[in-house]
């Protein structure tokens, strides 16, 4: 043998006292020579060769007969093993490959982007379609009861006012989404002027009294159309699945890291999804309004007002926490309004 000798310590699994050994691989056997000259042999196929690391001793596991800890940096065990036909597993070879880090990183990012952009939304859509309507109804009812207990109060609007609005909503829904179950409930919050509307699973659309202070009737129908878009696309249910999926994926990346890092990353990533859903609901609203001959501009104007309030007072209206409004969204609505129903000219923002 011309290579440097391989040395290690054999622990027999019965005692923690180690026996220094000199090792050789000869054909299909592992031969160890103890300090007192005694020789031991094991068939290589009975030896589990642990993955080697740069600075760690390599473990040759002998099951009932303990383990040989090969001293790091002595001899070339890897060469001897290869010569004897003992191969590293594919994952170990990948880990050790020169470009593994770069390639792995690029692939990770590609897989991540694909999963985020297409994979997870598609999976969530399929999953949402497989949830029976009764289950969705039940979840929605549960959430509604909870919201009614915690922060919602009965509406103070006159009954004929809400009834006339509900009639206009029904006309639009019959026209744009026939056969879709939904119900509108009017509520107010402890903060009387809270302006918001949101959708719960199962088709419940909650409209807050505060909306009627700011929005014209056409704009209110617009807001309703937007929420109906969430119902038609089953956004709440899809979002529930997407949040779960993102949580799992982020856990894979930072699972062994801190819980805070995992939560923050998951929150940042889900914001992107709600933005996509808002866009989808806006597109539905624009089409539905135009189909019913109702102008889109009041909705765009309402969103612009909400956005302006944020800029001026440095205080975020509640509406924006559930509906991130951006100039891009308002522009998209106005473009949609301009292209088809040229009822009114597009006002430059």
């Amino acid at each position: 043998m011309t290579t440097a000798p391989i040395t290690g310590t054999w622990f027999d699994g019965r005692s923690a006292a180690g026996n220094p050994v000199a090792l050789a691989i000869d054909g299909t056997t592992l031969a160890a020579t103890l300090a007192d000259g005694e020789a031991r042999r094991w068939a290589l196929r009975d030896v589990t060769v642990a993955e080697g690391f740069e600075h760690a001793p390599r473990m040759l596991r002998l099951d009932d007969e303990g383990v040989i800890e090969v001293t790091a940096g002595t001899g070339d065990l890897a060469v001897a093993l290869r010569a004897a036909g003992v191969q590293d597993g594919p994952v170990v070879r990948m880990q050790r490959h020169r470009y593994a880090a770069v390639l792995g990183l690029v692939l990770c990012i590609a897989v991540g982007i694909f999963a985020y952009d297409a994979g997870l939304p598609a999976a969530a859509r399929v999953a949402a379609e497989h949830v029976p309507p009764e289950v969705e109804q039940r979840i929605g009812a549960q959430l509604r009861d909870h919201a009614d207990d915690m922060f919602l109060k009965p509406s103070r609007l006159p009954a004929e006012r809400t009834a006339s609005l509900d009639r206009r909503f029904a006309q639009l829904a019959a026209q744009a989404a026939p056969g879709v179950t939904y119900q509108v409930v009017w509520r107010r919050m402890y903060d009387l002027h809270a302006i918001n509307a949101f959708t719960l699973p199962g088709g419940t659309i909650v409209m807050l009294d505060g909306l009627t202070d700011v929005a014209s009737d056409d704009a209110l129908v617009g807001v309703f159309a937007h929420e109906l878009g969430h119902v038609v696309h089953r956004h709440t249910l899809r979002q529930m699945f997407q949040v779960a999926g993102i949580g799992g994926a982020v856990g894979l990346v930072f699972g062994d890291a801190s819980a805070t890092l995992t939560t923050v990353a998951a929150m940042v990533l889900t914001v992107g999804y709600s933005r996509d859903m808002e866009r989808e609901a806006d597109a539905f609203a624009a089409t539905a309004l135009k189909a019913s001959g109702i102008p889109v501009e009041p909705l765009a104007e309402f969103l612009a007002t909400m956005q302006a309030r944020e800029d001026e007072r440095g205080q975020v209206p509640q509406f924006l926490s559930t509906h991130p409004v951006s100039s891009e969204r308002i522009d998209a609505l106005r473009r949609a309004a301009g292209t088809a129903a040229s009822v009114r000219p597009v006002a430059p923002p």
Partner: protein
Amino acid sequence: MRGIGRAWRAAAWSRAIIDTPEPPPAVSTLPAAPVAAPEATATAHPAPEDRLAGYEAPFLFTGTGAEYFRIWVVNLLLSLVTLGVYSAWAKVRKTRYFWQNTRLAGHAFDYHGRPAAILRGRILALLLFLAYSWSFEFSLNAGFATIVVLCVLAPWLLLKSAQFRLRNTSHRGLRFGFDATLADAYRVALPPLVLWLGTVGAGATIAYRQSAGVFAALIILPLLLSVLMPWIHARLKWFVHAHASYGDRMFRFEPAGKAFYKTYLKAAALAIVLGIGAFAIGTVFMSLMTIARVHETIIQLVAVGLAALTYALVLPYMSVRLQQIVWEHTQVDATDGQPVVHFGTTIRAWPLLRLVFVNVCLTLVTIGLYWPFAAVRFARYRIECMRMSSIAGIDAVTRARLTPGTSAVGDAVGDTFGFDIGL
């Protein structure tokens, strides 16, 4: 070659009171070929760390960020592509990397957890989590039923995860062990669980029935929970440390309740002093900013930042002090006339805080890519702060034997489910 410098530094740390070298290397009696062996060993890793030089044994960590980065990336990719199934295998690979790169008195640790068991454990944990997060969407009663079931299962999970972790870790060919009973687990976990369940229950009832009894429970139970917290925490550490074993050597954990109470009180006092300071500074800043009509979000951010700063100063102090206490109270029992083995850690609050701060910042700036480097740096600091000492020198370790009637390969039947919950 950073490993060598580190080894020398670690060797310098160990105080040589009694020089007890490892059983005779007897190099000269080795047959012809391996004669040069000791020299080869010496160049790779200097001799002093290869024995328990007298009184104190150093812990050494030989992993590097660059090497772990490649392992992390490849395993992450495989986990993503297999929709998380491979993550159990990745877990084993990563745990092995950290254990095999950890050396005590020159010899490494090893990890034997089986991926299939971890996968089964993860599936079970996922099912429990799904049950927990979906049951409330169905009905309040289903939600509470799930919480009660989880509370009943929690001590069992605690026991199983400690068992899985220790029984699958070895050093010098001997497995660690964990021999607490399910009854022990329930005794430790029930007081906090009952207090917590009571608080949650009272909180839920208050919405329906505002009676004096419910109000009293809502005040007394959380108060009791916080007063008992140091005791509960100390008992949890006792549970894990007192039931551990290495071969036939049993670990022992001296009662640490008093020391825990002292630390918690000091931390609370520190938090109050810092809190008052932060509040004073905060109030001045707030009023100045309100006058200057600063955006409300920025004002809120400043307030959160001040609170986080207080938290960031108190938490490392407490965590470091508790780690010191836990290890000071941990010993390996005397058997066949052998003296006791003691442990300690030289971990300090300020270096820990600096390390965590740098790690978090760099991980955020690199959108996560720094994470493997951070994990290695953190492990190195934590592990190399650890000390083991015994007046018997290395004999204290090498005389450990396999417990009669057990197998060197552990009981594979026992770990149907591998839980890898950190404690």
